[in-house]
């Protein structure tokens, strides 16, 4: 079954008297286990597209399907359950809760989804996979940027999602840490979760199996984008 399907999705934002189409009739299909990267200039609409896929933003028109479920026909409780159980988010910033220890940050999705158990074993296993098992009682402020990002990845994987959405996951990291984070994401992708990553770095985007380009709210494949650039 197709994992993600977007049909003629439009998202229009109002900016005073003007309207801006961050997504303009986007069609997209993502298969399970696929690694897709979305590139584009700042303001091209790539983050909006990622949030549309994850059900964080309601489209102005069109439909978003996740495993065949039309997300915006669901009520809040059902949609929250989908976000909680099927999607993992890694944002541009680590965005950890500063007052919770790392272990608690990682197992938070389990609590929010009313999952069974306290999730400690799973959270510890994930922290071990991202190389932070020795720091489970540290607080976010005690970690480096790269470590925080690794915790955010572990948290995104807590409920074993089918889809991992990463928005500029290496944006503010040095080269060495960037490689560590990308390696982690790739490893989890190879373990079965589909990965959709937004980036403005073509070098990073090329790690994906498919590269899509977002430009003024319109989505194209890399080949189409290259053709457009050549004829322009």
């Amino acid at each position, binding site marked *: 079954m197709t994992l993600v399907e977007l049909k003629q999705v439009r998202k229009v934002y109002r900016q005073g008297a003007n309207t801006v189409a961050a997504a303009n009739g986007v069609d997209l299909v993502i298969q399970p286990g696929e690694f897709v990267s979305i590139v584009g200039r700042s303001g091209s609409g790539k983050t909006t597209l990622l949030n549309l896929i994850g059900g964080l933003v309601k489209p102005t028109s069109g439909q978003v399907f996740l495993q065949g479920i039309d997300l915006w026909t669901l009520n809040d409780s059902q949609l929250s359950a989908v976000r909680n159980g099927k999607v993992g988010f890694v944002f541009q910033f680590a965005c950890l809760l500063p007052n919770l220890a790392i272990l608690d940050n990682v197992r938070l999705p389990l609590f*929010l989804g009313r999952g069974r158990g306290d999730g400690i074993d799973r959270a510890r296993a994930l922290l071990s996979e991202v190389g932070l098992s020795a720091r489970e009682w540290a607080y976010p402020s005690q970690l480096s940027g790269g470590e925080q990002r690794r915790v955010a990845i572990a948290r995104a994987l807590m409920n074993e999602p089918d889809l991992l959405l990463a928005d500029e996951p290496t944006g503010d990291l040095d080269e060495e840490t960037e490689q560590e984070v990308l390696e982690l994401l790739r490893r989890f992708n190879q373990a079965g979760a589909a990965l959709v990553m937004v980036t403005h770095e073509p070098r990073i985007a090329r790690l994906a199996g498919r590269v899509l380009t977002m430009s003024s709210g319109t989505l194209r494949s890399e080949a189409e984008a290259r053709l457009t650039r050549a004829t322009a």
Partner: protein
Amino acid sequence: MARRLSTLYLASQNLGRKPARTAALGFTAAVVAAVLFGGTLLVQSMQRGLDSMAGRLGADVLVVPRGYEPTMKEVLLSGEPSTFYMARQVLPDVASLPGVAQTSPQLFIASLNAACCTLPVQLIGFDPASDFSIRPWLGNTVSRSLKTGEIIIGDLILAEVGDELQFFGQTFHVVGKLERTGMGLDVAVLMSLDSAYEMARLSESKAVRPVGIGSDQLSSILVKVDPGGDPQALSANIVRLHPETDVIVSSQMIQGVADRLRGLLPLLYGLASLLWIMSICVLAAVFSMIVNERQRELGLLRAMGATRRRLFALIISESALLTGLSAVAGILAASLIIFPFRDLIAGRLGLPYLYPPAGEIAVLILLSLVVTLLLGPLASLYSAVSASRTEPYAMIREGE
């Protein structure tokens, strides 16, 4: 040791994030709880003391020597020790007046320092045969008449039944202790009129400073008016017959105190309401600020699968936890002032003062807790509704 995550745990962790701000907010709510609980308990205790006095004073009219009306009120209300007297002849004259149903004489003597008390106490001689004023306070403590040399002590006198106390060089046996009255009787020592006269007589030879009252004198006459009789008219008759006396109509005296108390009530409740409203405004402003500065986190929680309801519950729990704990602290603080310093407060108030029964105090505690606890959820309601209605990514973006 990892603990199970819960809404309350997350709320408590959030509150601990900025301890100074949490403490300041908590202090505001604690003051509301303390004023609500402490103030209401104070007024209820005064009302109860007053009701108790009105119900058990017994006398419709009190006759005292001219100029001693304020002194008599102080004796009755706060037990301020005094010695005053008038001719005993007033008693039969008053008793023979039309409209008088019953009379009973009393003798007031301020003691010198006694073993029980660091300060002088009020000794009251009463006539057990005609008394209708002291008897209701005795309960079941002493069912027989007092013999010479026997005394009954007020609840606040530091002695127990079986003890011996010395007054004016003579020894008295404590045979009973009064229930708490909330009035001057709490710090008084009662003896029969005969004992009092005997003490006064023997004090001439035994005491450093004699009492100076003879058996032809008394301090006050308590008068019960015939059913349907007019205490005002009777008091006018008494003063006409004995211009050297003053007459206190008890209903007027109690009314005066009740009026003072009634004047306090709106002030207290007004102050408490004002504080409550002010606290809501302060808390609402701060909670709105807190929710705004945490937009990104709240949006992230939604992205991780928190429902609108869960987000709403988290914000409300945080504010309820804060005001709930503050309410407990405020009530505890008020209790630590009000209960241990009961006698000091009663003395300062100069009014009858009786605590309500434990059940009523428990209800008052519960009400104060609930009213203060509600401050938090009410103050954060708007922020919680607004946050739970915002689209998750809009919150994340606003927080960036």
